[in-house]
């Protein structure tokens, strides 16, 4: 099945109020042209699940600056002062999640798990409102799964059926998010025919992917 689509096809999937997962770590591995498409179409009241809010003019930062977000669930906002400003002004809800916990909550969403037990955050404000469970004498926090309406993924190479290869540190949250959303849209640097990728090098199987565009 050929999953290559047009920018117009992608725009037709966006709605105000959706929950989006967006790959990337300080904008490395973020599908920049898909973020631009969100900005150009001014899709509003979005909840974004991502590692961070990047920089003012880069990656997810552009959505913050354009005031398209209602809530972010991230591990870090320090590189984008506008996120902090909107948070303090009560314009943007910010849920800060330890990075490893965030990765596992997203993985749970795609892996059919209800949540995980992690030692991270025990004895800190992160434990507030969460169930504590003791296993073999050690205390853990119960952290719930995360899912999204749409995941926006950045790949290095994609074949037309959606098999993906990532490059160096641009992999980060992308393979996890590609499992955890109803609709998975991929921006790939290079698109190749089915059969051109060695099955041994595929990092995300094409069955997770719905739409592909060249970035």
């Amino acid at each position, binding site marked *: 099945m050929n999953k290559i689509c047009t920018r117009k096809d992608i725009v037709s999937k966006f709605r105000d109020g959706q929950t989006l997962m967006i790959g990337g770590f300080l904008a490395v591995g973020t599908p920049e042209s898909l973020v631009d498409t969100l900005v150009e179409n001014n899709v509003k009241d979005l909840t974004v699940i991502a590692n961070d809010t990047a920089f003012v003019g880069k990656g997810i930062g552009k959505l913050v600056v354009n005031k398209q977000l209602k809530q972010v669930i991230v591990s870090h*906002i320090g590189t984008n002062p506008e996120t*902090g400003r909107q*948070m303090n002004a009560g314009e943007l809800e910010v849920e800060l999640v330890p990075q490893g916990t965030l990765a596992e909550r997203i993985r749970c969403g795609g892996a059919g798990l209800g949540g995980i037990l992690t030692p*991270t955050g025990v*004895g*800190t404000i992160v434990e507030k409102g969460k169930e504590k469970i003791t296993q073999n004498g050690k205390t853990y926090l119960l952290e719930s799964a995360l899912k999204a309406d749409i995941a926006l993924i950045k790949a290095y190479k994609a074949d037309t059926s959606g098999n993906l290869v990532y490059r160096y540190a641009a992999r980060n949250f992308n393979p996890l998010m590609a499992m955890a959303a109803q609709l998975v849209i991929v921006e790939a640097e290079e698109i190749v025919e089915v059969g051109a990728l060695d099955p041994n090098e595929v990092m995300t199987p094409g069955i997770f992917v719905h739409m592909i565009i060249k970035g």
Partner: protein
Amino acid sequence: MASVREIVGKRVARLFKDGDLVNLGIGMPTAVANYLPEGINIILHSENGFIGLGPTPPEGQEDKDIVNAGGQPVTILPGGACFDSAMSFSIIRGGHLAATVLGALQVDEKGNLANWMIPGKMVPGMGGAMDLVAGARKVIIAMEHTAKDGSPKILKQCSLPLTASQEVDYIVTELGFMEVTPEGIVLRELAPGVTVEEIRSKTEADLIIPENIKVMEL
């Protein structure tokens, strides 16, 4: 006279064994890699998704997809490996990291660490710090002994929100090398020229002073 960075870097570097997998935080902790003793090679973990972190590339040879956890261009050494964020933090929490080296705003007698927020002032988010401190086999704090205004950072009890509870093992500053034990903070070594009185006057926590206190080898 040696700089703070050099004193702290050299002492921290001597805590490693050859082949240790280590995560170095931004700032002073990063400098530790410059002071490894002869014959000690460590493997650096970068929580954004690889091990085998290497030095900054020459100008013009940066790769947009090879950056450290602070977003700065770096290199990946031969033998390095890339992975996703779930594996990166499985390495961290799973006890596969020999040590993490981080800075601190405050650290206390119980080994509590505060280094991620100042309510009302600075709320950048914890990033990977909480996982690193909870998961690494050894937690090493590398920092200036006091805050910029001269106030102590090694306290009886942290007042800022914690990064983790009772996880710190060692504290290394330009004044000394300290170990956190169940009994409290033990002063193991003094930096050259520093007296017990001086380090005590700049530390709020009660320091335990053993008889055989050493001078730091630099």
